[in-house]
């Protein structure tokens, strides 16, 4: 075996002590008729062979393209200290701090994580983490139903499609209703949450609303009228859930500032690698009155019997191992190591560094907007954005595919994730962060200009139509 210490002599000694002649005897409880057929797997590999196989697989992925892809997962610079500290075996090979006396490292770092996210969101209570932004949003929406004893939430179509789909899966399971708030179709607010529709949906006396869920920035990158949406929700007795992006909170208004009751979001931008979708970090936070509704672990400060400061998991009566079928959620394992990565990242980058990251992304995005517009791909929506926006590109899917051949990953073809929305049929969602360079923007814009021109000369239908 690859990692075990047992020699044949060790095994013989153990069998002798147990009083069995063979290990097979220990499995006598498995009924004969149910014993496994032969296990068929590829042969074992030495570490050298395995390392070579894994390197080859990793190399089959293409991560060398100039990328403008965001859409819920973002490229950022991660200071070297983050991974160096994460590799401390005392952190990553420990488990849930059930024995607080020998888990103060994990417990204090979680408390500090809760505190840092509390600072960013302005919320009083931060859970010790959820799986990702999507499940955090679903759990946040479920909290509103428990708190208000109502069974319907309204979710803006500006929330990430994966979050909406996950929320629907969770709500379907719980026999609760999630209705979609449409986006404004045209005018200066186009692409943002339709407040008129929201007000109308909230007014239905037969179907009272537990919570209203809006993302800021939205999936399309737009800054939303959060304060107004929150006021409408509260006027109808509903709670207001903000889906946020943590780096943006260094510069844009915090959920507390616009009156949100619950904040949730994806913590990946805080020093966590893209890793094809996970492990990421579900941020879930709330105001103090909702503390007993929040699912997931919470760490509190207390003292030991000698009066020294110490940390411990607390308010455990909400959790599955205590409350079983009456628990706030079935969540057990969370994303503690990712929460630690986020804390170290925030500690390393600091408050001014985080503002620089957010503001530099905004500056690069503004340069990208200008360059793409000049290349023939204007913005789809007029409203303010931070560092991500949609552009109209004739035959977006084909152009996007051809850009790959030129070494450019030109954002996300919106039709692939929102196939039912005709307004997004020929559009790319593009983003810039502090790692985007002006040279990269020029490479993208120039390649895009060529491809749009090429399509026009070939008379591709989408492009011909767009040029009319």
């Amino acid at each position: 075996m690859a990692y075990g210490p047992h020699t044949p002599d060790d095994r013989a000694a153990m069998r002798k002590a147990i009083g069995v002649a063979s290990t097979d005897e220990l499995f006598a409880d498995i009924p004969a008729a149910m014993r496994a057929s032969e296990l068929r797997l590829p042969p074992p590999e030495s570490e050298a062979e395995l390392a070579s196989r894994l390197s080859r697989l990793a190399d089959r992925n293409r991560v060398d393209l100039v990328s403008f892809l965001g859409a819920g997962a973002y490229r950022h610079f991660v200071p070297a200290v983050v991974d160096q500290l994460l590799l401390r075996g005392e952190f990553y090979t420990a488990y849930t701090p059930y024995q607080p006396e020998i888990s103060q490292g994990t417990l204090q770092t979680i408390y500090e994580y809760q505190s840092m996210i509390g600072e960013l969101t302005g919320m009083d209570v931060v859970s010790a983490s959820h799986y990702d932004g999507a499940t955090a949003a679903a759990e946040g929406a479920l909290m509103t139903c428990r708190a208000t004893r109502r069974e319907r939430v309204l979710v803006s179509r500006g929330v990430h499609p994966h979050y909406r789909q996950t929320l629907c899966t969770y709500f379907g399971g719980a026999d609760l209703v999630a209705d979609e708030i449409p986006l404004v179709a045209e005018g200066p607010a186009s692409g943002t949450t339709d407040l008129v529709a929201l007000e109308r949906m909230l007014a239905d006396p037969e179907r009272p609303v537990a919570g209203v869920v809006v993302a800021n920035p939205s999936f399309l990158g737009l800054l939303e009228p959060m304060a107004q949406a929150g006021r409408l929700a509260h006027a109808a007795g509903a709670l207001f859930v903000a889906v946020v992006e943590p780096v943006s909170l260094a510069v844009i208004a915090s959920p507390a500032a616009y009156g949100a009751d619950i904040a949730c979001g994806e913590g990946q931008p805080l020093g966590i690698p893209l890793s094809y979708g996970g492990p990421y970090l579900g941020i879930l936070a709330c105001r103090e009155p909702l503390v007993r509704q929040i699912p997931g672990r919470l760490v509190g400060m207390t003292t030991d019997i000698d009066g020294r400061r110490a940390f411990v998991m607390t308010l455990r009566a909400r959790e599955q191992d205590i409350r079983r079928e009456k628990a706030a959620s079935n969540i057990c394992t969370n994303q503690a190591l990712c929460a630690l990565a986020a804390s170290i990242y925030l500690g390393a980058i600091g408050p001014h560094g985080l503002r620089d990251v957010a503001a530099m992304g905004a500056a690069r995005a503004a340069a990208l907007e200008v360059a793409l517009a000049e290349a023939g791909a204007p913005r789809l929506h007029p409203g303010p954005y931070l560092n991500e926006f949609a552009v109209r590109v004739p035959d977006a899917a084909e152009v996007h595919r051809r850009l790959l051949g030129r070494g450019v990953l030109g954002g996300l073809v919106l039709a692939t994730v929102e196939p039912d929305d005709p307004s997004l049929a020929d559009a790319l969602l593009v983003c810039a962060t502090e790692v985007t360079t002006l040279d990269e923007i020029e490479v993208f814009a120039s390649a895009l200009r060529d491809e749009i021109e090429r399509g026009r000369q070939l008379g591709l239908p989408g492009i011909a139509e767009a040029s009319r």
Partner: protein
Amino acid sequence: MTAAGDRLGPTLFERSHAGRGGGKVPHPPKDALARIPADQLRADGPHLPEVAEPELTRHYVNLSQLNYSIDTGFYPLGSCTMKWNPKVNEWAARLNGFASLHPFAPDELAQGTLQLLWELEQALAEIGGMRAVTLQPAAGAQGELTGILMVRAYHRSRGDMDRTEVLVPDSAHGTNPATASMAGFKTVSIPSAPDGGVDIAAFRATLGPHTAAVMITNPSTLGLFESRIGELLEAVHAVGALAYMDGANLNAIMGRFKPGEAGFDVMHINVHKTFSTPHGGGGPGAGPVGVGEKLLPFLPSPRVLREADGRFRLERPGERPDSIGRVRSFVGNSGVLVRAYAYIRAHGAAGLREVSDDAVLAANYLKSQLAGVLDVPFSRHCMHEFVASGASLKAETGIRTLDVAKRLIDLGYHPPTIYFPLTVEEALLIEPTETESLETLDGFVAAMRTIVEEAHSDPELLHSAPHSSPVRRLDETTAARQPNLRWKGMTGEQTPCPD
């Protein structure tokens, strides 16, 4: 706020000093945010700590040293499988090709990861005897939810709307009943028989046309293989219900028992238990779910597919209309799954079988050595873990299992899981795993003997244990009554200056 003790340093907030740190990223132009409307901007920057890199590093390294971990010692935490986490797996997950791949990267850029995920699905399906596997769930508990939502979708697809109950043995993990509730089902608890298995008579009496599924942990949380499993599965299917296997303890039976082959319809797998991915202080994990033929159409979307030409791709939205949908964003915890894949490839079939054999051998050895020290309520051979009980010790000396656990800390061990399963008085659930040497196991037995002797000779030593840990027993009551859940005390020089 209390002062930090001698071993616990100040929080990062207390270490903050305005003007320290920085230099990680370039400064943006001054007018970078000028185009954003003022009412969307944050009035006052977040009060995050400002520390320089040396102090930051010492803060976290010193904190890490307050933790007990597999890398530092024996961690026989039953039901959690604290086995060795191979270092090559950490290296592999950090390869740039894996770590820097964006989840929305087009399939043609993601062939390496897609191939790895597809091969991992095949391997897990083979190990579990299942028809297919989804890797999407982010943790075991989410795998449970995924499985039970598929059960629900299956019954509904047949117009069978009256199945409102999920049966769960009383020894089950708390996640089972919590999952049933999240999926809209009522939990019905089934009592255990005296031998630790399911009480068959009570089980049959509970089964009926309202039963949607039965969730069985096998081996059970008592570390026992359910020897009447054939009878149980037959009874479940006879009433039209489905059999859910909680695969938390799959690490005991690889190559010996394939749940899908035996008749289970669905099973989740905790990769941080069976397949050595690190526990990370409480995550991240991953909770792949295997299904048989009946649940195939309902698997979450997207699945990883292999085309006829050998290329891999993700399923497109809406491609499989009966899917229960998404249970999270993107494709899954790919970075964790790289580690699980590496573990399986390192072992192969014979190696995985040996993993289970050695885990079971070590547990039975430890049980045989502790049999004269503590009560061992179930005498039959155990699987990968076993339950001991401090009931007699408590009756004789007044020392509770909690005291034994805390004293183990002084002697250099992480305590076993205590007071679980709920069905055994003063329980200690002990799981040595296959990666601990005979010397380590013997050392643990000697420590337990010492503690039992101390319980008779010096009980106060145990009541007040631990004595050597960074902090001593905690005031959990005050923590819950007056929760202090975040630092709000940055003052003076600690507070960052405005930009």
